[in-house]
């Protein structure tokens, strides 16, 4: 017979000795194994009070960033939706009206932006695809809900609030940061920059 590996062993059934056939020694041995587990360190983490450390680049609930002036960065280009392997992202674009310059950074913005958190696999490809540094994954854990509908997060849950900015510095690499700081690129200019010019 052809051996695929040399790890195979021929099992020879041997007659059990009287002690083995009694089973009681084996049962006692087993019982002392379980008894020893009574005094072992417990593996349980008491979750809400006690949390396991998470990676510094943990990929949790998304955030749609605003720029420093508070205008939404997203231009509804749709690259994140294209990049998303789970097809969790949908959006509708709209044109910025006059007087909305402080709300949206570019001429086009996302009127609706939805991420289905039940579909999302938190791979972070949306973040990688985003040319505007608008979407980031954060270390926040997506809360559970009673209905599936609640798990489709709209802009109300995704866009960061003006008062409580979400820190994404851990997920921004130095290269990206340097690129973003470079005002030579037009998409990095805020309204203020443009006004100054």
């Amino acid at each position, binding site marked *: 017979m052809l051996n695929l590996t040399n790890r195979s062993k021929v099992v020879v059934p041997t007659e059990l000795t009287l002690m083995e056939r009694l089973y009681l020694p084996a*049962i006692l041995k*087993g*019982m002392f*194994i*379980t*008894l020893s*587990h*009574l005094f*072992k*360190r*417990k*593996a*349980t983490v*008491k979750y809400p009070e006690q949390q396991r450390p998470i990676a510094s680049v943990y990929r949790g609930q998304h955030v749609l960033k605003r720029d420093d002036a508070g205008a939404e960065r997203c231009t509804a280009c749709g690259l994140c939706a294209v990049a998303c392997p789970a097809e969790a992202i949908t959006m509708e674009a709209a044109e910025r009206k006059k007087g909305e310059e402080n709300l949206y950074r570019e001429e086009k913005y996302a009127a609706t932006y939805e991420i289905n958190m039940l579909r999302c696999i938190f791979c972070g490809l949306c973040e990688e695809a985003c040319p505007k540094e608008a979407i980031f994954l954060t270390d926040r854990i997506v809360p559970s809900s009673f209905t599936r509908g609640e798990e489709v997060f709209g802009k109300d849950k995704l866009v960061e609030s003006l008062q409580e900015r979400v820190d994404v510095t851990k997920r921004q690499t130095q290269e990206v940061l340097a690129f973003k700081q470079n005002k030579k690129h037009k998409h990095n200019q805020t309204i203020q920059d443009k006004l100054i010019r």
Partner: protein
Amino acid sequence: MEGMLMYKIILAVIVFAVTLGAAAYMTWGERKLASWFQDRIGPNRAGPMGLLQPIADGLKMIFKEEMIPTHSNKWLFILGPSFFMLTACLTGAVIPWGSGFNSDGIVYPMQIADINIGLLYLLGVVSIGVYGIMIGGWSSNNKFALLGALRASSQMISYEVAMGLALIALVMMTGTLSLGEIAQQQDAGYANVVYQPLGFLIFIICAFAETNRAPFDLPESESELVGGYHTEYSSMKLGFFLFAEYINMFISSAVMATLYFGGYNFPFQHELGLEGNTLVILQTSALFIKILIFIFVFMWIRWTLPRFRYDQLMNLGWKVLLPLAIANIFITGLVMFFTGKLS
């Protein structure tokens, strides 16, 4: 006489309450022990150490939706768990919980009914117990439930034989069927387990089988039979089945402690120089400590051994335990004959 009757009624109520309370907290203990054996910490949210968990579980059971299958026999379906619960609670009546305390010269025995055929009563009630499971499983009109009930009844009947024969050796030795007397006799000498180690081993194995506990939990084997005889049960009826199992466990622990481990007696009890009633309280606590140890063994075994296959179960019952029990009777008889204990 009147006072004695009142006392007996009060004692019955106390025993009933203690049995139910102990069974409730055994569910907590089981869950705690199970998790400790598996390196977890177990229920710890309801109250300190999860001590309110049995109450939460009970409330949950009560508020669950009551389902009675359309094609089931409704009355039998309700009778099943009620009967199982009833028989589980009946056994506590003959167990001596203590020697009896003195009040104004009258001795109040800590036993509801010291009937002279206590052991026979015990075996009788235990064998009626199978009817609860049988009725419940059969009236559900469900194949899994029926299979579970069949397994339960054949298992319980098979193991009752060996159990009864193991007890016969004990009865030969003690010369009485009264549990009170058996407990009392162990005050003077050693506990019966010293004289009847094989009988005790057979008895404890049969007790595991009778209470449908692992490794003999085939009637309700979750993995094959979806829950066995209580597949169709929901709400408090299911609760009754599960709860009665714990009552059975408590009672059989008490029976084992009484028959083989000296009952309420503890070593050197008369050397302590205590006066009557304090000693009685100590004796009752000693009995409860013994019961707790047995309950621990029940749970310890459950979380150690895997379930038997059905043919293995039957082989063990009929081909191993039964001959062993008969041999035990024979050896006991021989020893009694040669030591001149035979009158």
